[in-house]
């Protein structure tokens, strides 16, 4: 996949990691006591390995961000902007035309020689047939 699509996918991955992380923490966090007046709220038992989840999820998020930076460094952004690219395209087009004409010339010359050789060959074979004495 080309690198810009990879970058776009990495952005989407970061987004999904973010909302998964916030959502999981918000859903599963044990309730907090608001003030000394109110009694300690009853808590749903948090799921297994709840203490590890923030660590794992934040590690995944930071890894995704680092991956994004790595992809960004690998981006082959040629300096020069649009004008430089259009100039290069014009140069290449001119060179392509020149080489194309050269190719066309060579092709025509080769075709001509091929016709000559074919003509000579058919002449030679005709002579062979004519000279061959029937037994």
């Amino acid at each position, binding site marked *: 996949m*080309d690198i*810009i699509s990879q*970058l*776009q996918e990495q*952005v989407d991955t*970061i*987004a999904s990691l*973010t909302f998964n992380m*916030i959502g999981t*923490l*918000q859903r599963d966090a044990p309730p907090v006591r608001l003030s000394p007046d109110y009694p300690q709220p009853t808590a749903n038992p948090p799921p297994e390995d709840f203490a590890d989840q923030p660590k794992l999820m934040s590690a995944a*998020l*930071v890894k995704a*961000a680092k991956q*994004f*930076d790595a992809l*960004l*460094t690998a*981006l*082959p*952004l*040629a300096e020069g*902007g*649009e004008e430089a*690219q*259009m100039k*290069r*395209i014009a140069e*290449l*087009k001119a*060179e*392509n035309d020149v*080489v*194309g004409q*050269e*190719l066309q010339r*060579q*092709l025509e*010359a*080769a075709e001509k*020689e091929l016709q000559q*050789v074919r003509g000579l060959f058919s002449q030679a074979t005709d002579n062979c047939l004519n000279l061959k004495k029937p037994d």
Partner: protein
Amino acid sequence: MATAAYPPPPPYYRLYKDYLHNPKSAPEPPPPIEGTYLCFGGNYTTDDVLPSLEEQGVPQLYPKGPNVDFKKALRSLNRDLQLHILELADVLIDRPSQYARRVEDISIIFKNLHHLLNSLRPHQARATLIHILELQIQRRKQAVEDIKRRREDAQKLLAEAVGTLDGQ
């Protein structure tokens, strides 16, 4: 179960009755449309350009200007994004009712990121074109070399054949 029949083809086929004999007796195809056109009730434009962020009502977070330094802008946006996510987590701990502003900031950052990546696409298209042209030039040069070499080989063979015939 009722099924409707397909609509009949448009009756313009009658105009092309003598097309084989006289191609000019039939009407020309319609010219390509320019500008905006209406298609099944939707407005489409023929000018394929990426709408700028202001047109979509999103504030632009990276510095404006003719030549945007994409790598630097994308890197700084990435860092901003991480900081905002951390801020959101903090806000949810202290003042949970104020999440909306933070979430909106995060979504603005994401929109900026995607807009920057999308505006890299024309650059990529031009780079692909340059690459294809270079490949084509290389292939053509190779073909010219091949033809030259074959012609020389053929000339040599013919010369040898003449030599053999004369020697006889």
